[in-house]
C-alpha cells in the first residue's frame, strides 16, 4: 500500500503544506479542522447564552430600570460600531474568498481592512466606556450616577459591562488571530489548496460580529 502521506501529497500537494502524520489525506485534515472550529463556536454561544439568559431575567424583573438605564447608552456610537463590525465581517468574508482563489495581495488587503475596522470598533468602545465611567454609570455597588428614579440601574450596567466587556475581549483576541493569518498570508502560505486557518479565523470573526448584532439592539435599542 502506498504510504498515506505520499498519496496525499500527490492529491493535494502544496510546497508549504504537509498533511499531519495521523490524517490519511488533506481533505480529512481540513474537515477535522472545520468541525473543530464549529464545535468551538457552539461553546462560545453557550458561554454567552448564560449572559443573555441573565439579561432576560433581570429585564423582566426590573423592566423600568432597564428602560431608564438604557437611555444613557449612546445609540449613535452603538450604531457606528455595528456598521464597523458588519463591514469587517464583509471584508473578512472577502479575505477568505481571496485566499481560496490564491490571490495573495487581495487576501492581505482584506485582512488588513478587517483589523482596522476592528480597531475602530475598540476606539469607539473606549470612548463609550470612558463616558460611562465618568458619569458613574457602573455595575452594582460601583454605580453612583445621580438622578435615577428606578431601583436597580446597577444591574443593567452590570450586564452591559460584562457582556460588552467579554465581547470586547473577543474582538481583541480576534485582532490577534487575524494579524497572525495576515502575516502567514503575506508569506504566501495560503492557496486554493490550503486556506483552512483563514476560514477558521473567519468563522470565529463572524461569530464575534453576530454576538454584537444581538447585543446592540438588546442593550441600546430595546433596553
Amino acid at each position, binding site marked *: 500500500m502506498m504510504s498515506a502521506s505520499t498519496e496525499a501529497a500527490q492529491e493535494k500537494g502544496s510546497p508549504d503544506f504537509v498533511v499531519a*502524520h*495521523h490524517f490519511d489525506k488533506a481533505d480529512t485534515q481540513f474537515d477535522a479542522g472545520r468541525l473543530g472550529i464549529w464545535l468551538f463556536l457552539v461553546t462560545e454561544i453557550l458561554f454567552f447564552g448564560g449572559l443573555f439568559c441573565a439579561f432576560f431575567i433581570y429585564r423582566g424583573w426590573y423592566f423600568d430600570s432597564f428602560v431608564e438605564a438604557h437611555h444613557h447608552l449612546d445609540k449613535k456610537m452603538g450604531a457606528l460600531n455595528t456598521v464597523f463590525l458588519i463591514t469587517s465581517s464583509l471584508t473578512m468574508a472577502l479575505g477568505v474568498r481571496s485566499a481560496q482563489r490564491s490571490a495573495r495581495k487581495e487576501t492581505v488587503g482584506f485582512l488588513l481592512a478587517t483589523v482596522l475596522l476592528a480597531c475602530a470598533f475598540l476606539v469607539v468602545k473606549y470612548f463609550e466606556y470612558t463616558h460611562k465611567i465618568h458619569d458613574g454609570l457602573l455595575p452594582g*455597588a460601583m454605580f453612583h450616577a445621580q438622578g435615577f428614579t428606578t431601583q436597580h440601574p446597577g444591574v443593567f450596567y452590570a450586564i452591559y459591562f460584562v457582556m460588552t466587556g467579554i465581547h470586547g475581549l473577543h474582538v481583541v483576541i480576534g485582532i490577534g488571530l487575524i494579524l497572525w493569518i495576515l502575516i502567514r498570508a503575506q508569506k504566501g502560505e495560503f492557496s486554493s489548496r490550503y486556506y483552512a486557518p483563514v476560514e477558521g479565523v473567519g468563522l470565529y470573526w463572524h461569530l464575534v460580529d453576530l454576538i454584537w448584532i444581538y447585543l446592540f439592539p438588546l442593550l441600546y435599542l430595546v433596553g
Partner: protein
Amino acid sequence: MSRAVTADEMDVEAGGKNYLNAEKGIVSWLTTVDHKRIGLMYLVSTLTMFMIAGIFALILRFELLRSGQDVLTPGQYNQAFTLHGAMMVFLFIIPAIPGGLGNFVLPIMIGAKDVAFPKLNLLSLYLYWTGAIFTASSIVSTGLDTGWTFYVPYSTTVSQTSVIAVTFGAFILGFSSILTGLNFIVTIHKLRAPGVTWYRLPLMLWAIYATSIVQILATPVLAITLLLLILERAFHVGIFDPKLGGDPVLYQHFFWFYSHPAVYIMILPGMGIISDLIAVHSHRRIFGYKAIAFSSVAIALVGFMVWGHHMFTSGQSELSSTIFSFITFFVAVPSGVKVFNWTGTMWGGSVAWNTPMFYAMSFLFLFTIGGLTGLPLAMIGLDLHLHDTYFVVAHFHYVMMGGAVIAFIGGLHHWWPKMTGRMYNETTAKIACGLIFVGFNMTFFTQFFLGARGMPRRYHTYLDQYQPLHAFSTYGSWVLGAGLFLVLFTFIHSLFKGERAPANPWGGRSLEWQTPSPPPTENFHKTPVVTHGPYDFATTGK
C-alpha cells in the same frame, strides 16, 4: 486468536520499540503530542489528586469518629470537606476517565494514529495542570470553606478564604475539559480506520462521545458562571447579590445547569468502561449493543433537563420543582436499560473471573444502589426531609465512587497490561477489590441510615445518638483506604516485577488488543482494516 499472535510477532520484529521507550527524558514527555503519553500523564496527575483528596476524606472521617472536636476545628473541617469535594470533582473524576483512559484507548480503538488535534490535546493537559495549581494553591494559602458548589452570597461576600483562586482554577479546568471533548468528537467523526463503522465502535467510545457532547455544551455555562462569581466577589457587580438587586438562585440555576450534566461527565465514561469489561471478560457478544449505545446519548440529553432537582429547597417555584422532579425519573430509564443489558451479556457467556470483572460486578451492585436511592431524592416530598442529610452524601458517593471511580479502577486494571506492557498480581488485585467493596459499603451504606435518621451533612460534630453509625462508617473508611493503597501497591509492584504482558491477555476483539503491549508510537505497524464488530466473540470458539 491468530491476530494476537501476529501483533506479538510484529513487536519482536520492531525490536521492542514502543511509545514508552521510543524517546527518553522528561522533555520528551513534556513536549509529546502522543495521545498515549498524554493519557499516562493525565492518569498520574489525576491519581495524585485522588490520593490527596482521599486523604482529606480519611481525615474528615477520623474527625467524625467521635462527636465533638478532635483533630479539626469547625473551620478546618469546612475547609477539608470543601477541598475534598472540589478536588475530587474538578481534578479527579471529571478529567480522569476521558483525559486518562479515554486519551489512551480512543485513537487505538478506532485504528487511528492519534487524536485529531494532538497539540490541542497537550494544551488540555497543561491547562489541567495550571488549574490544578490554582486550586491546590488554596491549601497552602487561606483554604476554601464554601463547599465545592461555591454558593453565593456566602462565597462572594462572607467567606474569608481563597474563593477567587479556586474558582479561577475551576474556570481553567473547564477549558481543559472543553478542549478534550471537542478533540474526541472530531476524532471519532473523522479518524476511524477503514471498516470502523459507528456500530463497530466499542461501547466505551459511544460513552466517551456522549460525555464529550455534555462537556462542550455544559462547561461553557460553568465558565461564565464562575467568571461572574469572580467579578461579583472582586467588584460587587451585583448580578448575584440580593442587596444590589441580583439573585443568588440564578447562580444556583447556572451552576447546576453545568454541574448536573457534569454528573454524567463523571458517570457516562464509567458506564462505557463497564460495557467493555463485561463483554470482554464474559467472552460474549454484548447484549443490546444499540440499546447501550443510545442509552448513553439519552442520558446525556435528559441530563440537561433535570438540574432543578438540586434546588427543591432553594426557592424555585413549585411548578418548576414538579417538572424537574418528573423529568428526573426519566434518567432511571436509560440507566436501567444499561444495567439489564450488562446482566444479559453475562448470561450464557464464558465468564473469566479476572480482576476487571470483579470491579464490573462491584459496579453493577453499587451503581444500582446509587441509582435507586436517587429516586426517593427525586420525589419532592421526600427530598424536603432528606435534603442536606447524609442520605444525599451516601447516594452520590454510591454513584460517583461506587459507580464512576470503581469503573475507573476496573478500567485501569483492564488496560494496565496494554498501557505498561506488564501484568499485575491477580491475587493482591482481587484482595484489594474485595477490601474496596467491603470498605465502601461499610462507609457509605451506613450513611443512608444516618441520613434517614436526620444527620445533616457538613457538620464537624453530631448528637450522641449518631455515634455508633458514625464510628462504623469511619472504620469502613479505613478498610476502603487500605484497599485503595493495596491497588497502588499492586500497580507499583507490577511496574517493577510484573510479567511481560502479551498483546491480548483477555482475549478481546476490539482494536486495542490487536497491537503490541505497549503499543508502538504510531499505535499500529500498519493501518488496520476492520471486518468485524468489537464484541464478535462467536468466532473465537470460547
